[in-house]
């Protein structure tokens, strides 16, 4: 089945810095989602982005489906951005999402 790999596994930023998180997937996908898992464990939807670029405030995402990767950009990071960022793509026979191992982001004041 499809494999999803994320990098870097850990990232420490100073507040105000920008960052780019990467997600590679091993097969063609019709859907890709980015999530933020906050310190309380809640998975919050960030983007549904099978292709192209989307922006939401300080966050934006780009998926290049033909090259099997997606990027999540965080600009002017804030301490509230801390947590784990996951990307996921449908890879099971039942449309279930296959998750990467996540990028753990820590934003220091």
């Amino acid at each position: 089945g499809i494999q999803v790999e994320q990098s870097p596994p850990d990232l420490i930023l100073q507040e105000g810095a920008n960052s780019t998180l990467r997600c590679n997937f091993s097969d063609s996908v019709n859907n890709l989602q980015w999530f933020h898992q906050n310190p309380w464990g809640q998975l919050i939807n960030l983007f549904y982005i099978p292709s192209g670029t989307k922006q939401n405030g300080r966050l934006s995402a780009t998926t290049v489906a033909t090259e099997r990767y997606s990027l999540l950009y965080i600009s002017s990071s804030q301490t509230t951005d801390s947590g784990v960022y996951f990307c996921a793509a449908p890879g099971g026979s039942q449309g279930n999402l296959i998750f990467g191992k996540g990028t753990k982001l820590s934003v220091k004041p």
Partner: protein
Amino acid sequence: GAGVSQSPSNKVTEKGKDVELRCDPISGHTALYWYRQSLGQGLEFLIYFQGNSAPDKSGLPSDRFSAERTGGSVSTLTIQRTQQEDSAVYLCASSFYRTSGMSTDTQYFGPGTRLTVL
């Protein structure tokens, strides 16, 4: 509107006991998924329901796990004779529909149930 809700938020049980975890999907969502997140294992898929259709149980980790969905809405995940390796956060997600093939609509996740088996 209301998101996906799950109950209880935390459950501590003794090894060998049975537990029931509940998921209320977003109103109107026909697709419902159960996942679990455990240390060192990441997020893994357990079972999927589409409306009232019988689910494919092949993703469940053992025959101690079962799930049902009543009336195409609320779902219950039951773990019998719990073991310590069942300790994890159990997450439920719902989506409006699932199209054919590999395409899916956006999945929205509940807050999870943290299960601890002593």
